[in-house]
């Protein structure tokens, strides 16, 4: 049949504006529910991968037995030195880490009012290597770190709950020039950065590799205190393919099975997966996403099936005119896509506001990346179109005879 194309799905839905707004808001709430739950889940998992995210690396070398950053499996520095020979590898630097032995004395100079000495994450790197990009680092800090027994501190360490010291971290006031002790050794704070706390630790300080190994390795290890490293950070020639070079580096140093080479993205994923599997965070908030999906699907089904019911006579007329069932089906499916988009846009906007609010109250960053926004869009479309298919059953019952 040759008739001008009419955007029937659109007209059907928007004919009653108030109702359309109500429909869209129903879908929008499902979108908000899914995005917020997804955002929380990602924030909690992301916070545990922050060190990896900030590594200035193309490839990361690690002991394959080390399941997560919190464990202590190291590997030999000589393995890292071997990688320099691989064409395409520009630099290789060592990262030293300690979660157990590093204890920072509270910075309060008065022993009477001073809080307790507490554990924290200690990172040791060569200050000249820029192996890690510390966010919002005070300028000139890396140069100052060359002096022995100096440290960079985390301005976003866990905030203290003590009402007498508002705005301070659990380690006391942290400012450049303050003197304190790390595991019994005097230490001067020379610069600040912003990293944040996570499941495993309340804060981080960064030392030069020399200072680190003198304080935290020498007393506990025989032989060269710098020999065993926690992570290796490789930078590649610009334009080279990290996946290809990963294989080559793995071939050169990985034959003994004592080291594993990963791209930076793989290292982040591995850490995320460990926390996903070891805590119920993934389940708790993943369940929220699924519930949001199901609720949205039922809402959408309800809208579409009542739309078919309301326009039964009109649909019957179309059938009587000679439009095939396929045409009616396509209208319902178009409606489901329109509903998905009409709910998605305001829903995402609200979710974006909710992310900003939650980031403010929880000090844990909820970020809406393009990929995550796209994931929610995908979920919304699947949710609406699936319920559209369910509603098709109703359309099939439309009988041309119903006109009369």
């Amino acid at each position, binding site marked *: 049949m040759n008739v001008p194309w009419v955007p029937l799905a659109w007209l059907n839905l928007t004919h009653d504006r108030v109702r359309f707004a*109500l429909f869209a808001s129903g879908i929008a709430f499902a979108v908000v529910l899914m995005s917020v739950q997804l955002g929380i889940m990602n924030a909690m998992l992301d916070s545990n991968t922050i060190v990896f995210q900030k590594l200035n690396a193309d490839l990361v070398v690690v002991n394959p037995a080390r399941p997560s950053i919190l464990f202590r499996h190291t590997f030999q520095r000589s393995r890292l030195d071997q990688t320099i020979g691989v064409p395409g590898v520009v630099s290789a630097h060592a990262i030293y880490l300690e979660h157990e032995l590093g204890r920072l004395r509270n910075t309060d100079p008065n022993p009477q009012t001073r809080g307790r000495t507490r554990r924290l994450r200690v990172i040791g790197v060569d200050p000249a290597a820029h192996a890690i990009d510390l966010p919002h680092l005070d300028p000139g800090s890396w140069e100052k770190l060359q002096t022995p027994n100096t440290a960079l501190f985390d301005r976003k360490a866990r905030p203290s709950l003590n009402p007498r010291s508002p705005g301070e971290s659990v380690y006391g006031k942290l400012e450049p020039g303050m003197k304190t002790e790390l595991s019994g050794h005097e230490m001067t704070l020379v610069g600040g950065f912003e990293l944040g706390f996570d499941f495993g630790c309340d804060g981080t300080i960064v030392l030069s590799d020399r200072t680190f190994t003198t304080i935290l390795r020498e007393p506990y290890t025989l032989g060269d205190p710098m020999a065993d490293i926690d992570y290796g950070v490789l930078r590649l020639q610009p334009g080279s393919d990290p996946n290809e070079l990963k294989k080559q580096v793995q071939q050169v140093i990985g034959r003994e099975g004592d080291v594993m080479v990963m791209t930076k993205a793989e290292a982040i994923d591995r850490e995320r997966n460990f926390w996903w599997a070891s805590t119920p965070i993934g389940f708790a908030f993943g369940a929220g996403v699924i519930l949001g999906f199901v609720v949205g699907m039922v809402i959408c089904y309800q809208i579409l099936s009542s739309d078919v019911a309301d326009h039964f006579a009109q649909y019957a007329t179309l059938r009587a005119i000679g439009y095939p069932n396929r045409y009616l089906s396509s209208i319902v499916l178009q409606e489901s896509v329109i509903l998905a988009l009409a709910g998605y846009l305001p829903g995402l906007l609200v979710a974006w506001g909710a992310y900003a609010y939650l980031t403010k109250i929880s000090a844990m960053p909820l970020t809406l990346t393009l990929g995550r926004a796209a994931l929610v869009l995908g979920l919304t479309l699947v949710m609406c179109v699936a319920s559209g298919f369910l509603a098709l059953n109703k359309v099939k019952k439309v009988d041309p005879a119903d006109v009369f």
Partner: protein
Amino acid sequence: MTPLGLAWSNLVHKRTRTAVAAAGVAFAVALIFMELGMFGGVERTATALFDGLRFDLILTSSEYGDVGRAGDIPKTRLAQARAADGVADVLPLHLGNGVWQKPAHKGWLGVSPPGNVGSIGMIGVPPDRVADVFAVDQGRVFHSRAEAERLGQALARQGAILFDRQSKPDFGSLEEMMAVPPGGEDVPGYPGFRNAIRLNDRRVDLVGGFNLGSGFSWNGMLMTSEETFADFTGMPRDRANFGLITLKPGAKATEVQAQLKRLLPPDVHVRTRQEIVDHEERYWMQLTSVGQFLGVAVALAIVVGAIFVYQMMAADIRGMLPEYATVKALGYRPLYLTGVVLWQSVLLAVFGYAPGLVASFALYYITRNFGGIPTEMTFERTVIVLLMTCGMCLASGTLAIRKVHAAEPADLF
């Protein structure tokens, strides 16, 4: 006919429509129950360990944050506390974690290979005092004193461990793991894999089980002797994380607490059971992101649930407009119609609530056994959600009544 009678007949007559609306309400109810359950799981996480321990007062480090960050104290503090009046005994407890090699698992989909690792919690106790450290009774950590003593003896051997039966299933099932021979075994279908019980990459000897339950702090738990604990975690042997104080009969907890506070240096805190449980709950509910975020999730579930119920009710009532118009045309007063709609709301609330509650029991079971979150249905929660459902339905019914009053008898034709 009374308004209730008509409401009932309305719902019974249009069975499919009623079923859809009730299913909608049920979904909202399940959503709210689920989020409340997980929020409650945070609270249970906070108290699960302390509920399983026997103590009147507890010594912790002054650094104590929560059970996951307990801080440690010198064991000499325990000895000092033992000297105080009214104290019957003080027992050390160690808490830490290790890397657990998840064993091969025989599931619905065949055998899954071993090899994945997870972080597992570890409790270290004096093996000869296991029966005094933990609650022993039916349904508690150990079923009986005799069982606790027998397993304690087995724990005394270096490298022996007990496994929490309520650990998340992918950490392994006790029965399957007990059947693994000490030297390990091959896994059918996965050549090159060796199934063995490993902690921190070392063989351990699994000698039995206990019941504690997992939570947000840990997904699985092991029990060892103090010696094995020190060996695997590197904790110095002269330190402990907790001192469990039991009092002599007749001694008053608060008096002994005051005395201990005077006696002991400020590196330890003395808390009553109630104080530590309150501290732990406050910490988890208000200070950890898990508690805060699940609180947000509960609020969100309620809002979405309410909107959802409104959509269902509005659609249901819209569908019945011709019937209402007829009733009006027959001469019934608006008040009568209001009664009908409100009764209908309450009936739908109940019809939706019942399957929603049943579904929630299933969801809780899954969450508990597969998600590792200790969810439990409480009577208060069932009542609160029932009232909330009725409230949501009545509110949306009230909103929808306007449409009914706008129904013109003439619309019939």
